[in-house]
Each structure stands twice: as structure tokens, then as C-alpha cells.
């Protein structure tokens, strides 16, 4: 049975666990105890789902992409519209769950890490909503690239802490958030944005994102009276994919996770952790990661800041090893082409992260028959990516 993962040690098969400094073992146990209690409390679930409905705007729609389906001439393509979630991406589902847990634990201050800024914005949003103080750690390079989201966070009342260590990207922001948490764990709650980090984070974030898969399953059964043949999601840390896949793990649907191949997996500039990485420890978890022969973590690259992470959630490592999920990779260029196609044919501008999942699905759709179906998790909208898109498309548009 897949659902028993993680085990009591926080393991998904060989992966997961708690590889953290001794000073974090206490706070992680406190978190796990509080999480277990909350998850058994119907009142907590009711509040979480109530906020998802009346604040975030869930359930999000399931859209049949008829124009793209006709154009590609194969499988019927459905989109799960997480771009319609409040703040524009799936990230808020998890931020709401963890903020409610923080309040329940009596922690008035939250910290978060962010790369592209979507999780930072989601954290700043729930902090404003629930009256919490929020500090967001962000690499200085990302602060430069994501000016708009930095302003959004500040407008929402969060403090954005610039991280200059390493290359100044998501990995370094996460290191710094963990270091800050070590020193301030007594009154701070660390709100991690993906299914990464030490136990119980990968489980907790998955459980706060599974609403994506649960809703999709119900909606899909209503319109198609069957489950999709294939389900696609992009994977950086892997929270939108875990949230979508988890409720389908024991069904027949084929699951496909799509990593960022950047400038190509045969170049050093990519973020294809499972395709090209090796098992190791990053941010407290045993998983796959990009590293050199000496076990030093290497810098990833992707056009999308949200996939630009050298690790991946440990449950994905497990699903990769057991072959329950097929992992593919898509280059910057393929992602941009898919983004253009969806925008022009369906009137939906997806996030560049999401475009990786679209590109893989579009590659496969034509070779499937017309009575087959696919479901793509449209994890976020592309508004945040306008500056990048202008650089690439302005001349053509």
C-alpha cells in the first residue's frame, strides 16, 4: 500500500528522513506532534477547507482544452486550473494549511523561503490574512529577477530578507531560512513552500496540496465518467505534482512529472534532478540532488525560477525509484513554445514552470487516440513572467 508513506521515521522507501543539526530535532518533533493532532481534528479540516472555499476561491475549474486537443489531433486534453487560485498559483493551498497550523501552535511569526516569489507572496498573503508577522528569505539574484513579487510581498506587509550567500538563489534562501529558524525556533514557524525539507514537511505539504488531485478526480469522473489516461505536472521541489498525483497513486492513470532541462540535459545548465542527479542529502532530506563527484551541491539552471532547485521532494525520489511516476525533462525553448501555443489557442497564459508540463503533454498527445484523455496541472498563471516573456517574444508579438 502506497498510502502508508512516510513511515514513522519520515521515510518514503529509501528517501526522506531528518538530516538536520541537533538543534532542529526538538522543533521538528513539536511540529510533527502538532500536525498529527491537527490532522485528526475535524475542526481543523473544516477550517482549512472553509478558507480554501471562501478566501482562495476553490474548487478551481477543470477546463477542457478543445482547441489544443483538436490542433494536436490526439488525446482529449483537460487542464486543472490552479492559475485561478487566489494569488495565481497552487502555492496558496499549502500556505493556508501551514498558517492555520502555526496559529494553532501559538506561533505568531512565520518565516518562508522563496525563489520566483510565488511562495513568498502566498506566505505574505496568509500572514496578512491571519495576522502573523512574516519574514521571507530570498536570494539577491532572485530579488533582482523578480522585482514585482518582491514589491507584492512588501505591500502585503512582509519583510524580505536578501540572501547573498552562494549564488543568491532558492537553495541559498532555503539554507538561510533554516539557519534563522535554528536560532529562533521557539517562537517562529517555518513555512516551507514545497514537498522538500526534513520530515514531517514533505508529508505535510503534500497533504495540504492533495486538494488539487482530490478535486481533479471528482471533476474528471463527472465529465468523463472515467479517470484520465495520463496526468502531467511540472516538478521543481514537486509540490504541485505531489498534490495532483497523490490521490491517483493507486489508480491506473499514468503519472508524468516534468523537470526543467534548461539549455539541455547534456549541458551543465539544467535543473533535471532525477534525470541527471544522484541520491544525497539536501535541506534535511535524503533524496536525489544535483552534485559533483565530491558531494558538493551544484547550481541548477532553468528559465523558470520556480524549477531552479538542485533537489526534489523525497517522495518523488521514491516514486522515481519504484517507477510509479515517469519523469521527463523539457528545455527552456520547448517550454516557451508550449506557452505560446496555449496562450494563442486557449487564451490562457501559463507560468513558465507550468509550460514544462504542457510541453511534455503536447509532445505525447498527437500519438494518443481520440478516446484517450490527459489531465495537465496548470499550476500557475504567467503574469509574474511578463518581463522574461517580453525578452523572448517582444519582437515577434
Amino acid at each position, binding site marked *: 500500500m502506497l498510502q502508508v508513506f512516510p513511515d514513522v521515521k519520515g521515510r518514503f522507501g529509501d528517501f526522506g528522513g531528518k538530516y538536520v543539526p541537533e538543534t532542529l530535532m526538538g522543533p521538528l518533533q513539536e511540529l510533527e506532534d502538532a500536525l498529527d493532532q491537527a490532522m485528526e481534528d475535524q475542526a481543523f479540516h473544516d477550517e482549512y477547507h472553509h478558507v480554501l472555499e471562501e478566501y482562495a476561491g476553490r474548487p478551481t475549474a477543470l477546463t477542457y482544452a478543445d482547441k489544443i486537443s483538436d490542433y494536436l489531433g490526439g488525446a482529449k486534453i483537460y487542464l486543472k486550473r490552479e492559475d485561478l487560485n487566489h494569488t495565481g498559483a497552487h502555492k496558496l493551498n499549502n500556505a493556508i494549511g501551514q498558517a492555520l497550523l502555526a496559529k494553532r501552535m501559538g506561533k505568531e511569526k512565520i518565516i518562508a523561503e522563496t525563489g520566483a516569489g510565488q511562495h513568498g507572496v502566498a506566505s505574505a498573503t496568509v500572514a496578512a490574512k491571519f495576522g502573523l508577522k512574516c519574514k521571507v528569505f530570498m536570494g539577491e539574484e532572485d530579488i533582482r529577477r523578480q522585482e514585482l513579487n518582491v514589491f507584492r510581498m512588501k505591500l502585503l506587509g512582509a519583510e524580505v530578507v536578501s540572501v547573498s550567500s552562494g549564488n543568491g538563489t532558492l537553495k541559498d534562501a532555503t539554507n538561510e531560512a533554516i*539557519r534563522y529558524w535554528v536560532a529562533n525556533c521557539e517562537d517562529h514557524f517555518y513555512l516551507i513552500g514545497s514537498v522538500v525539507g526534513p520530515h514531517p514537511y514533505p508529508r505535510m505539504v503534500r497533504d495540504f496540496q492533495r486538494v488539487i488531485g482530490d478535486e481533479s478526480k471528482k471533476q474528471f469522473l463527472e465529465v468523463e465518467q472515467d479517470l484520465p489516461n495520463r496526468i502531467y505536472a511540472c516538478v521543481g521541489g514537486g509540490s504541485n505534482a505531489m498534490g495532483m498525483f497523490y490521490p491517483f497513486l493507486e489508480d491506473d492513470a499514468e503519472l508524468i512529472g516534468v523537470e526543467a532541462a534548461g539549455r539541455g540535459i547534456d549541458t551543465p545548465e539544467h535543473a533535471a534532478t532525477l534525470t541527471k542527479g544522484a541520491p544525497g542529502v539536501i535541506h534535511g532530506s535524503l533524496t536525489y540532488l544535483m552534485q559533483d563527484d565530491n558531494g558538493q551541491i551544484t547550481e541548477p539552471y532553468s528559465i523558470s525560477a520556480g524549477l531552479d532547485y538542485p533537489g526534489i521532494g523525497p517522495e518523488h525520489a521514491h516514486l522515481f525509484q519504484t517507477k510509479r511516476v515517469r519523469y521527463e525533462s523539457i528545455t527552456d525553448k520547448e517550454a516557451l513554445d508550449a506557452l505560446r501555443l496555449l496562450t494563442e489557442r486557449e487564451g490562457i497564459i501559463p507560468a513558465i514552470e507550468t509550460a514544462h508540463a504542457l510541453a511534455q503533454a503536447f509532445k505525447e498527445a498527437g500519438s494518443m487516440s481520440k478516446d484517450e484523455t490527459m489531465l495537465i496541472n496548470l499550476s500557475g498563471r504567467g503574469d509574474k513572467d511578463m518581463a522574461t516573456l517580453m525578452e523572448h517574444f517582444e519582437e515577434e508579438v
Partner: protein
Amino acid sequence: MLTKTSFQGKLEKTEDLFIPFLVAGDPSPSMTIAFALRLQQQGADVLELGVPYSDPLADGPTIQRAARRALDAGMSLRKAIELVPQLRKHGLTIPIVIFTYYNPVLRLGHDQFFDLLEENGVEGVLIPDLPFEESEEIRGQAESKDIEFISLVAPNSEQRIKQIAENAKGFLYCVSTLGVTGGENTMTGESLAFIKKVKEYSPVPVAVGFGVSTNEDVKIVREHADGVIIGSKIIRLIENELDKINSGEKSGALKSFSNSIAELVK
């Protein structure tokens, strides 16, 4: 009752221990040897030899900078372990503990890691991101090779303190305050009570680290614990000498480093 001999019989003292930390290869392997010898002259009882890592989660900015310098100079886990016989050749006799994050060990493979430690005469190993619950296999391997696996215990270890302390080998690394390395040490009544509790359970000397940066800090720690661990402060003293080292005045740099250490641990 404290164990009288540990580190393969090379450490007979059980109190007033001075345990300095160096990052191997910061700023070069030959300077690491020179600094280590000076530390031994100034009374060091055990040397913690740090392996530089790209993502040192338990370390503050000082040790991060040192790791960056050492990595830029080409240091690795294997090279750091292979530096040990060089240290011996130049006259270092005190036990050496290899301090490394877990990922480089995993990449090398547990068996190969312990073979390397054994071949190069390393007496101890400390892995800061491998807590008790995740270290069972490695502790067993260390024991079978007669290498001390150093454990850490923190003020918020709570009910785990007893379990960790009772299983401690070599010396027990007591993290005095919550936070990363290189912060301010504040020895409150609470931390003194914590050290006392740890000492009740530990069969090996209890050494206090994190934020020990002045002679006053050293004196307070000495009064309450069996040993003092100094890392970031020593790195900062090395940083003070980098200009001299880079302009070729190595002996001047070493002399002034020695004087500062003498002042720190007097």
C-alpha cells in the same frame, strides 16, 4: 565516572580540554598544517578538522566564508582526510576529528569513507547533520574501526539528552545556545543547568561549543564543562592574517595567530 582514555588511547585528559576547529585547506593545505601545529603548541588537546561544504546548514557566515575559500582552493572530503598523515609528518600528535556534513560521505560511500579514515589514521568523526536517529549504521561502523563518533546535544534535545549522552563517544559536543556557529555566546543559568544535566549522563568529557569567542567565554565554559570548542573565532583570527599570508609574510602571520590564541585560551 569519565572514561579515562579515548581516541585510541591518545587522549588521557578528561578535563580542561581545548578543542579548536580549522577548515581544511583554508586558505591552503600547507597553512592548515602550520595553523594546526601552532594550536597544538598553545595547548590544543584534539583538532577538529572541518571539511568544506557548499551548503553548511549549521554554520554561520564565518565558517561559510572559510569553506568557500577552501573549496575554491580545491579541497574535498578525500583530500581533507589525506591531509591527516601530512599533519602527523609535520609533528601533530593530538587526536584528529574529521568534521564533515553528510552528503560528501554519502557520495563517497560509507565503507570507502571508513576505509579512508582508517588508512589515514583519523581518530574521530563528527557529522553535524546526522542526528542520533539517522546515525545508527555509521555509529556501528565507527565502533568497529575504533573511531570515535562524536555526538552533539542541544538545550532543546530534551528527553533525547539522556539517550544521546549515554551513547556518547570520545567527547560530547554540547551546543550551548540555539543558532548557528559564530554567534554570541550567552551562558545563562539555563545553559549552565543544561550542561550540568548532560554531565550527569555522559561517560565522556562534555565540551561546549557555538559562540565561544572571548577569553571570558573560555573561562566561564572551563568552569562548568570539561572542554571548550572554538571554531568561528579561530577562523576570524586566520582571516586577520590573510593579507600577510598573501603577501608572503607567513612567519609573521603565524606568530601573530599564536599570540592571539594564547590570549584567547589563557
